[in-house]
């Protein structure tokens, strides 16, 4: 059995992350290449939506990732508060910008898709609205983290916030859904779309895997930078090969 706690110390995690980063970059590039190929060349043109629908190969995986990353952040937050590990907070704060990026990307691509399909950049659809609020939650987390000077305190305050957020996300989603059905705002529903060709589904899944690998690679890189920044004056950082060369 692997002793997971061994890697919860930055000094052991740093070299491990260094080894993992190229692997995940390669995976991300491979999955993205195949996924985009399927998306642009193999997948058939949609009967109703024409070529414009192809943005879903970015849009849907991006929204999946934006929600998933928030859950991962909350998981690390829980780990950090329970086991008092330094690494957990670093991982949470390393994931937040990528999560916000995906939330923004999904809103932006959704608007680009909505203009030709629905004739409007924005409708007050339940999914759009809750994605926007998720984006605000990411921004709130990053703002809180940046506003507290002591990094350990910032980590723990952020952890409490992301746990409160993760409890609230489903409540927000259902309340917005209910609000939407009451108002009868959006006339177009995403759920009523015709069933998808299996090549489209494969393209989307591969792109989701590509985004997943990208997220891991970027989060690890960011976590490594955070480690160097915070632990710059410790012995293990001074003995790192890269640092020694630079000096």
């Amino acid at each position, binding site marked *: 059995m692997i002793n997971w706690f061994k890697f919860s110390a930055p000094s052991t995690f740093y070299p491990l992350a260094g080894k993992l980063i190229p692997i995940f970059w390669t995976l991300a590039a491979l999955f993205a290449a195949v996924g985009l190929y399927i998306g642009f060349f193999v997948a058939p043109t949609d009967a109703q939506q024409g070529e414009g629908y192809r943005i879903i190969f970015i849009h849907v995986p991006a929204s999946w990732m934006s929600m998933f990353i928030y859950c991962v952040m909350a998981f690390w937050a829980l780990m950090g508060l329970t086991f008092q590990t330094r690494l957990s907070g670093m991982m949470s704060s390393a994931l937040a910008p990528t999560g916000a990026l995906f939330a923004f990307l999904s809103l932006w691509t959704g608007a680009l898709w909505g203009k030709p399909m629905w004739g409007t950049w924005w409708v007050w659809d339940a999914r759009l609205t809750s994605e926007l609020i998720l984006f605000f939650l990411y921004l709130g987390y990053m703002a809180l983290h940046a506003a507290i000077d002591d990094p350990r305190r910032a980590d723990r305050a952020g952890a409490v916030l992301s746990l409160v*957020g993760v*409890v609230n996300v489903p409540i927000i989603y259902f309340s917005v859904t209910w609000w939407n059905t009451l108002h009868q705002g959006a006339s177009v529903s995403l759920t009523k779309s015709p069933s998808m060709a299996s090549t489209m589904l494969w393209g989307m899944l591969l792109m989701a895997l590509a985004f997943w690998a990208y997220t891991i690679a970027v989060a690890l890189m960011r976590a490594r930078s955070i480690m160097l920044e915070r632990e710059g004056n410790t012995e293990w950082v001074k003995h790192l090969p890269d640092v020694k060369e630079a000096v």
Partner: protein
Amino acid sequence: MMLLSAYVAALRRDLLLVMRRKTEVLTALFFFVIVTTLLPLGIGPEPDLLRKIAPGAMWIAALLATLLGLQRLFAADHADGTLEQMALSPEPLSILVAGKITAHWLVCGLPLVLLAPVIGLQFDLPTDAIGVLMLSLLIGTPLLSLLGAIGAALTLGARGSALLVSLLVLPLYVPTLIFGAGAVESHIAGLGAAGHLYLLSALLVLAAAFAPWATTAALRISLE
């Protein structure tokens, strides 16, 4: 009994502090009145339109007015060290925090409920709708105080905390706003407000159980 007396003591103390400096209470109250007065000036005086936006407008004004008071909830006690003494006291901190949150609601939330009929008349709401509005505010404003306390505790001692609180707390207020304003709207539409009010009450029970606890955790982090 010990817990109850600790709760009452914290509540009494905060209310007493507010009574010694009444302007702070009145500021939030006047803010509510002024915002709701400015809205018709910006939108236009047509009674039909005003009746339509009244629930949402008053609820948003209530959200903002509650935010104003949040800053005060822990900041002064943090600055003069009272909060540390509270954390050191033999009574559980969450009970004292619950007392402080209740005081915040009595000072910032309850007056809004009592003032709502007057503003509702300005917006030409029918009398029975005003009753529903008051009921929704009565259930909803404690929820705002409870959720807001978490934000206030998290931002304690952070830079630019006044603005930060609103960024953290306002997204969490979304369900309250939807069910609170929705109760009045669906009552006016003839659908009955019961569903919305039940959901609002459920959220209140949930928040009452967990928010003081989360606030305490956040306070302990801020006090480190």
